[in-house]
């Protein structure tokens, strides 16, 4: 009986491993820089610091440049790497908490956009942690297509809106 109960678990592990192996460049590998096992398990987020969020007054949202993304993608392009390294260097030497906010353009459906924005924020978080920063000081949040950087419609506005922004808690 016990063995039977373990069978679905074994199947799940196998399925998960084979899925991981199939992840293509559009979504995964460029972004997380993590091993396959890490990308499946993710890097759990620390508990929130109550009363402090990305939109709080005591958060500096202009200290670092946003990281931009391709359409429907959370892969981090090579041109964006320098921005992430700058944040990682700062985090290695500073005691501050960092909140990464993910955003999408307006072209998806709302709940998927909230997930995609979160996945972008977490891809950036993983990259910063892999560059040596302490993940226990880094939170994420997604606003989906809300709060666009450019309120317009069209390729130029959409490119500015597919982003992850950095909020440094002062």
């Amino acid at each position: 009986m016990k063995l039977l109960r373990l069978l679905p678990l074994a199947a799940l592990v196998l399925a998960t491993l084979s899925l991981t192996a199939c992840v293509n460049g559009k979504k995964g590998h460029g972004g997380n820089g993590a091993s396959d096992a890490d990308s499946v398990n993710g890097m759990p987020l620390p508990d929130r610091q109550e009363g402090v969020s990305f939109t709080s007054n005591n958060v500096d949202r202009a200290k670092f440049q946003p990281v931009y993304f391709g359409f429907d993608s959370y892969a981090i392009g090579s041109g964006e790497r320098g921005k992430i390294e700058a944040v990682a260097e700062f985090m290695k030497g500073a005691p501050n908490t960092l909140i990464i906010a993910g955003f999408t353009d307006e072209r998806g459906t709302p709940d998927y956009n909230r997930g995609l924005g979160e996945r972008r924020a977490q891809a950036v978080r993983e990259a910063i942690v892999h560059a040596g920063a302490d993940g226990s000081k880094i939170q994420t949040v997604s606003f989906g297509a809300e709060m666009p950087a450019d309120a317009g419609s069209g390729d130029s506005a959409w490119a500015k809106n597919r982003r992850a922004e950095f909020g440094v808690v002062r």
Partner: protein
Amino acid sequence: MKNPRALSFLAFCLFASAALVHGAETPTITISKSDKIPIAISAIGGADGAQVAKILQNDLAMSGYFNLVPAASAGFIVAGTSNGNSIAGNVTDRGGKTVLSKTFNGSERGKVHAYADEIVETLTGSKGIAGTKVAFVATHTGHKEIYVAEADGAGVHQLTNDANISVGPKLSPDGTKLVYTGYKSGYADVYEIDLGSGARNRIIKSPGTNTGACYSPNGHELAVIMSKDGNPELYTTGAGGGGAHRLTHTPGVESSPTWGPGGDEIIYSSDDRGGPQLYRISAGGGAGHPISTGHSYNTEPNWSPDGKKVAFTVRDGGSFTIAILDLGSGNVHTVASGEGPAWGADSRHLIFAEGGSLILLDAQTGQKTTLVSGLGKISEPTWSR
């Protein structure tokens, strides 16, 4: 068409039309595909009788099952006496025999909706939609707020007033509660509102983004997307948001869970293999199985109460279209432009958002009605059952 009385009436109609056809000496007999039941509303007694008759007429027409006709050609006659918060309803067949006699209590409109739904159930065997609630997001105030309304679009009421971001509402199947994603804390949390008392609680505030919360059919559980483990994943929780159980383990983005009628399975969207696809998973755990739809972008699935169909949003080119998947055959067909479909209790009607308005679609006849407009841009509708 489970009701024997309605069946025998239809048989009578067919017999009558066959006789007519014979009288005209036409060589073949044509049977109409329309199974609409001819029905008439006689004068409703009581001070608000005229208004009751109007609401009742709209409810019965909206159900899709009836043709409103003069009493002389009606199969059933709807009568009643309204008295304050109750209405004594009486429905007779063309022979004068009573097929429904009952008193319905409720508000000015609620009592009428209850009567309409009982007429639908008695004559068709299908559950009615008149007494249900809808909710949605609208931007009328300049912010995304949650609104509720009756299923016919009347009684629109702004539920949240946070001047923040309030999105992703889902009504409990019984229409007494609503969960949504709110950003009051600066993070995406799941809030629950008791629609009776108005009390609001933040029930899920895990690190990261908490979204897509949706009640199980019996209201005892939620399916929800949480990112606390480093990636948006599908979980189930107790009704109060506690006791999270993780169902998916993918590097991709899960979104928009919807429960099967038995509460033992969930369909959701995941972009684990490229564009977002639909997946089906046991609510107890195990692997998620992809559902082939023939479309590359599939989100916002909504499982019909009868378990037979899934409505969802596809993106083809730059626009959104409502598609219906028949789970028995695996066939998919698109029915209208729009997004965010939700089935009604009858598994026949859908509501969705299109061009900023809330639209009602009779998926059987294709008839479209605008339920609510003029509130800015409406999105993410939900429907109680």
